[in-house]
């Protein structure tokens, strides 16, 4: 009887373990192996990795990607934080309406959203035409440029980050804020002494999520980006289409390593419990 009980849980887990191995673990291992296979000499080595770091075209692409992602993370978090604070503490018809609308972009398919944005911001787009009505000929110069990509990233990520930060803010009670006002704390003091310490964890979590999902983004840079420099996701697509499987695998591993930095921050923050949270 007891022996049966020990085996049973493993048996029950077996299907999912097999499935995981087949569709996740096996491709990862194969990908890592492939990334070390040298196309010309046939053996194993760092040739595929060296290709990215000894080639200005690709180092520029990597830095370009990181730059766009970091700007996206910082801008999305800053805007979302302000928006979430506004939604939480302002009780006006406008804030209530915004509270209902801000999530809307998440329901619009990415391709539709990107194409929609292109028709608005391109140099012959909606904004240009509106400017012509007023006698100007405004060119935003946002297409085929990092500005367009960042704008689009914000469209996708602000609703998500606002949602996460809003959840954290809703855990702060009105009386906790009012008690601070009551002891003569200014708005800045309330932010630094109450709101920030009670929400910084969720802000970091949102930031790591945004970082991870944008480091490998493809749709937006493919449709809106320039031919040079390219974001890593687009480069990966090019390499794969041109049968450079080893290099594509190496680039995947590099992207994975960037993501795992964010992932470790995420895990560290989630594991860490502040002393005051014990029993909360």
């Amino acid at each position, binding site marked *: 009887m007891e022996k049966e009980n020990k085996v049973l849980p493993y048996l029950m887990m077996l299907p999912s373990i097999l499935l995981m191995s087949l569709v996740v673990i096996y491709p990862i291992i194969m990908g890592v192996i492939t990334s070390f296979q040298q196309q010309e000499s046939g053996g194993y080595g760092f040739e595929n990795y060296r290709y990215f770091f000894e080639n200005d075209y690709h180092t520029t692409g990597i830095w370009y990607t990181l730059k766009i992602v970091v700007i996206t993370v910082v801008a999305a978090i800053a805007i979302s934080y302000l928006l979430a604070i506004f939604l939480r503490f302002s009780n006006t018809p406008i804030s209530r309406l915004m509270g209902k609308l801000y999530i809307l972009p998440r329901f619009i398919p990415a391709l539709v959203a990107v194409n929609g944005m292109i028709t608005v911001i391109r140099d012959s787009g909606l904004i240009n035409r509106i400017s012509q009505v007023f006698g100007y000929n405004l060119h935003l110069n946002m297409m085929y440029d990092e500005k367009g990509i960042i704008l689009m990233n914000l469209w996708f990520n602000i609703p998500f980050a606002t949602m996460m930060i809003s959840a954290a803010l809703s855990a702060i009670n009105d009386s*906790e804020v*009012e008690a601070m006002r*009551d*002891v*003569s*704390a200014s708005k800045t003091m309330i932010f630094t002494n109450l709101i920030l310490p009670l929400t910084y964890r969720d802000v970091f979590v949102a930031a790591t999520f945004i970082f991870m999902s944008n480091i490998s983004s493809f749709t937006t840079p493919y449709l809106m980006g320039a031919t040079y420099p390219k974001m890593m996701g687009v480069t990966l697509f090019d390499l794969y289409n041109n049968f450079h499987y080893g290099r594509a695998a190496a680039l995947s591993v590099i992207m994975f390593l960037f993501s795992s930095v964010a992932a470790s921050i995420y895990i560290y923050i989630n594991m860490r419990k502040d002393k005051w949270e014990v029993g909360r």
Partner: protein
Amino acid sequence: MKLQVKNVEKLYGNGDGIRDINLDIEEGELLTLLGPSGCGKSTILRTLGGFISIDKGQILIDGKEVHNLPPEKRSTAMVFQSYNLWPHMTIFENLAFGLKIKKVPKAEMSKRIENMLKLVGMIDHIKKYPTQLSGGQQQRIAIARALLLEPTVLLLDEPFSALDAKIRVQMREELKQIQQSLNMTVVFVTHDQEEAMAVSDRIVVMNKGVIEQIGSPTEIYDNPTTRYVATFIGEMNFLKNTDGTTLAVRPEDVVINADNADTSIEGIIKTIMILGHYTSISMEVGDTTVHAYVPRLKANKFSINDKVSISFIKYYTYN
């Protein structure tokens, strides 16, 4: 006069709110705003603290207008029903925060915090976090934090209503003691009439945004001026008179006589409940039920289904 409220009005979009609020609160007085939920008692308290703006009228503290000032500029301090303490700060940090803003020197600050914690009996918990304390202990700290700011008026918004019955009784006794020893002016909001009777110098009975009656606990209990107050404070029997008015009698003012006595009201005993030092007897009188509190020894001579006649020591008539 410590605190004056003159013709204050605050109405919300849905018609709720407070109207014609006039209060004069003396220094060292403990005034209670009493009423059911939605009667506007918390709204009044929050206008005093500056958390709600008023549409009309004036609020004066020590003769100075304060109704246009935000909470951070008022010399009042408020204790809320719950979630008073900042969860990420220790008890010491919670108490020190306001003093730091007031730029109290460090040595003096520590001394004042320790003295205050001794006053509320919480000195052993100085290094703990709020979550490590019980609800009652947290409210003690919340009161200590408010008192440390040396407010001109202390505002308490149902501070004990989230606590167990036993702790609640203990806390209100402690509050009364502290209030008297510091000669604090306190405005206290509660929906619990027993709590109001126990702690107050004066009670303000509220109904649907207006004041129904103001008076000492004895005045309110002995002379409820309206039927609403009579219903809300203590136990009361209501009997319809033939002329359409209503007769109100407290159970302790009902005298039960043997059936042959010469009174006009007759009843039949339905239940007899022994409640410690007295007995509660309920009787069927016409189509209503009348309750009477009778001393144990006198109650012994009655049993269920006895026909009795009743008279009243004292009663009130309402339209």
